[in-house]
């Protein structure tokens, strides 16, 4: 993890309705448990504990996934944002940070539910260079509605 204890970092959901700043990053992890899988619609959740978290725009909606844990998400676009263990700690989803590269996971949890195909993900083939270029042509014409990876004074901006 390339963060100091005192670093404050920003993040938020895809549509930008919810923005936060966080500090005191600890124990970056991926969790393979079936509850995390289902909550994020993926093979694992990538989470990091934060000591201080403040919502700088909007606030998440919550699903109480058990009597001890609630999970925060954006009601407008669905981005999973938090895993909050009652009376103990709050994790945020690493990829909702504006700079997710700073928080490399250091441990994996819930291995009993790890999907068998997880091991080979890094070795999967990708598009050919030609296909990638063709895709880039299509995507360069898309008007992107995602909030930028930095705080903004107002969103959506006037350009929308």
């Amino acid at each position, binding site marked *: 993890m390339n963060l100091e204890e005192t670093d404050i970092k920003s993040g938020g*959901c*895809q*549509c930008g309705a919810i923005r936060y700043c966080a500090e005191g990053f600890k124990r970056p992890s*991926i969790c393979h448990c*079936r*509850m995390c899988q*289902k*909550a*994020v*619609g*993926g*093979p*694992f*959740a*990538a989470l990091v504990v934060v000591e201080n978290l403040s919502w700088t725009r909007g606030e998440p909606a919550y*699903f*109480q*996934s*058990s*009597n*001890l844990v609630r*999970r*925060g*998400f954006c*009601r407008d*676009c*669905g*981005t*999973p*944002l938090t895993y909050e263990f009652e009376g103990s700690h709050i994790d945020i*989803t*690493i*990829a*909702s940070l504006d700079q*997710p*590269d700073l928080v*490399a*996971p250091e*441990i*994996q*949890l*819930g*291995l009993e539910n790890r*999907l*068998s195909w*997880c*091991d080979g*993900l*890094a070795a*999967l*083939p*990708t*598009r050919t260079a030609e296909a990638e270029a063709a895709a880039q042509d299509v995507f360069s014409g*898309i*008007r*992107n*509605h*995602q*909030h930028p*990876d930095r705080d903004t004074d107002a969103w959506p901006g006037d350009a929308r």
Partner: protein
Amino acid sequence: MTETYTGGCQCGAVRFRIEGTLGEASICHCRMCQKAFGNFFAPLVDARHEDLTWTRERPSYYASSDLVDRGFCSRCGTPLVFAYRDYPLIGLAIGAFDEPGRVPVTKQHWKRDKISGFDTLHALPGGPEDDPEFADVIAEIDASNHQHPDHDT
């Protein structure tokens, strides 16, 4: 060969069934998929619209661009859908399937946006959740689990 697959969100408000053949299963590293899923990548598998039935509530949608709608459960947030408008295929979140192990991924896209650390995730050390000190907490969560079971109800 026609197969049946079921799945849905964490709380169970949105459920789906596919009767047909699944298309390409992939992970996408692009920054938009990362943000939509709050995760390293989006794991998606293609299905034909005509093979897909929403068997309970339908997803809510966010238009992440002019071309793409992303579906999710407005009650619990689970990301469920990546869909190009006016396209015969719909992408479904593999982790939302009741049996995600039946949907192995075969390709990865947009590696230029790959988050550092991805390549070594599988080699990380395991955690302490099997330690006896966690047994009571795990038991309490198991006993009060509000997640929809991995089958239709």
